[in-house]
């Protein structure tokens, strides 16, 4: 058999060996990235003693104690008192009684989680709304000083946001926006909108003007053409941008610590404050973190197709 046939694969495609090496690198990276996540999840289903045992337990009896502790507040009682109570009504009640405690009420985790949802999705929606309209204007109209304005918008990302923490803290106190959901939505929008404008302008630039012009000649106003023709085609870009905005707003910690303490507190500053008896309640912290990962995970998995297309959009012109 000639060499030509035994090396029949294309010279521009990677060969089988390169493919295997690439696959191995990806698998190793994925495993490394998964370790902390697996650790957090496993910790969340350990009992508090198991979670701090040394060396760490790999084989253990799973428990829901972390999740129970996450959602409840408890108080310690004497065995005599607990014996007088009616039988436990649920799993958490039972687990708590085994530790000589009773459930006295819900914890703040659920409302904090709701705050996170409202603030993250609210600021994402607002960023996308402002970003799309601004990007469209920058892409299609002769905006005076367009390049300078675009640069100005980008320049808001050039310093670390925390550098303006004190002015914002004072401003928010004056404006009555401290510890309000609206305040946090506006703050995260201000940070995200620059990213949104820049990303979306790229996507909208790629949509030929002819589509809107065709729609306008066909009897639609520019606004109708924008909604019916431009937006559907910018959908992948909008989804990709929305995920980036959402991830930032969802994970943001520094401003959340600084500006929220009660009413509008989000989950990230709340989770580290979960204290058990005699120190940090690690299973509850891990349970809070695990649940906190779920919305982004679901959102990203549901939209992964658009996200991938969005990120690689425009790389190859058709």
């Amino acid at each position, binding site marked *: 058999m000639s060499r030509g046939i035994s090396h029949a694969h294309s010279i521009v495609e990677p060969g089988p060996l390169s493919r295997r090496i690439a696959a191995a690198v990806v698998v190793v990276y994925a495993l490394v990235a998964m370790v902390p996540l697996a650790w957090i999840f496993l910790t969340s289903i350990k009992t508090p003693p198991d979670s701090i045992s040394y060396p760490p337990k790999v084989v253990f009896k799973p428990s829901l104690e972390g999740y129970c502790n996450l959602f409840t507040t408890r108080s310690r009682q004497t065995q005599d008192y607990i014996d007088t109570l009616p039988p436990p009504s649920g799993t958490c009640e039972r687990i708590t009684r085994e530790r000589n405690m009773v459930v006295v009420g819900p914890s703040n985790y659920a409302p904090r989680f709701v705050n996170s949802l409202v603030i993250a999705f609210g600021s994402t929606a607002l960023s996308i709304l402002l970003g799309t309209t601004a990007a469209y204007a920058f892409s299609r109209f002769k905006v005076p000083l367009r390049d300078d304005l675009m640069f100005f918008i980008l320049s808001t990302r050039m310093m670390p946001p925390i550098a303006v923490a004190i002015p914002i803290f004072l401003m928010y106190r004056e404006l009555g926006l401290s510890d309000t959901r609206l305040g946090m939505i506006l703050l995260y929008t201000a940070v995200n909108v620059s990213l949104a404008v820049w990303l979306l302008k790229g996507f909208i630039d790629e949509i*030929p003007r002819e*589509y809107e*012009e*065709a*729609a*306008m*000649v*066909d*009897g*639609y106003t520019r606004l109708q053409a924008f909604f019916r023709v431009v937006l559907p085609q910018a959908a992948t870009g909008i989804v990709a941008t929305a995920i980036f905005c959402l991830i930032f707003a969802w994970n943001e910690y520094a401003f959340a610590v600084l500006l929220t303490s009660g009413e509008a507190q989000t989950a990230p500053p709340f989770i580290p404050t979960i204290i058990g008896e005699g120190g940090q309640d690690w299973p509850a912290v891990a349970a809070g973190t695990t649940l906190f990962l779920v919305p982004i995970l679901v959102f990203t998995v549901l939209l992964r197709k658009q996200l991938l297309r969005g990120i690689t959009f425009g790389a190859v012109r058709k």
Partner: protein
Amino acid sequence: MAEIRVHKLHKAFGAFTAVRESTFTVADGQFFCLLGPSGCGKTTTLRMIAGLELPTSGTILLGGEDVTFKQASGRDIAFVFQLFALYPHMNVRANIAYPLRAQGMARAEVRRRVEEAAHTLRIGHLLDKPVSGLSSGDRQRVALGRAIVREPLAFLMDEPLGALDAEFRELMCGELRGLHDRLGATTVYVTHDQLEAMSMADAIAVMNQGVIEQLGAPQEIYDRPASLFVADFIGSPSMNLLPFSGRLARGARAVQLENAELAVPELREDGAEGELVLGVRPEHVRFDDASRLRATVVETEYLGTTQIATLTTAGGASLKARLPSALPVRPGEQVGLALRGERLSLFERASGRALRTSLHDAEAARG
């Protein structure tokens, strides 16, 4: 369908003038071509008629109504784009129906009209397909369907065949003209391809640097180019332009080129002198050993029924001749050239303007 009147239309983008004082009328039912090289202002003119661009000055009348500054959506015209601009998120049916939905037409009526348009264009079988899988020819038909379904006042087409393969282009040329005739449409068609313009148009406006250089029927533009630009732009190969200097009086019937005296159409103006140009189509050049205009064959290009010979005259001018392909022609050969006197054009070199000669008599009689 309606007449389109464009009067002194002017468009400047900052310091750059795209269209300069253009005036023309497209008669009801006419197939009108704006022809010119890229950047000549033909597309800008079309876009101003469509309302996608607003003129700096001038007026546009559509069926008698002044629409100069009216929004595109209010003009009742259809525009066919070079890249079709089919909405990728809709199927063929939705694309064609889109202009009708803008008018809020009843569903049943939309359905009927879309199917009728699809039938006219023979794309009925494609109606429920997505546009992404279509061939470029079918995409163009869908784009035309979207244009005809509305029964607009006029069709405006911006190089609609530019994105098609050569074989498709010829086919679509015929289809487009056929469609125009069946619908009794008024069409303004922009192209840089003179063959498209020649084969389809009733009238052609040749544009260059924002100015309409000549406006007329295809044959008139070919036979009697009004300027050096038109002479050079129209025809493949283009008209041979042989510069000479001399003085011509009214009624002159011959010019001196190199050492030959050549018969030309009789001059109908008060005389011209200085740098002039003699224009001759390659098909009006033939070999004649008796002629005193001598030339050397440089190369020949075989085209089937004819061949194109590239020649250099004794005086150093280069020209092309379209000859029967049976005629034996060898590079290096010395030949004499005879030009068909009654078909020659004369131009002023500096202004590029064609001199008025007996060539224009027929036109004068008609006008």
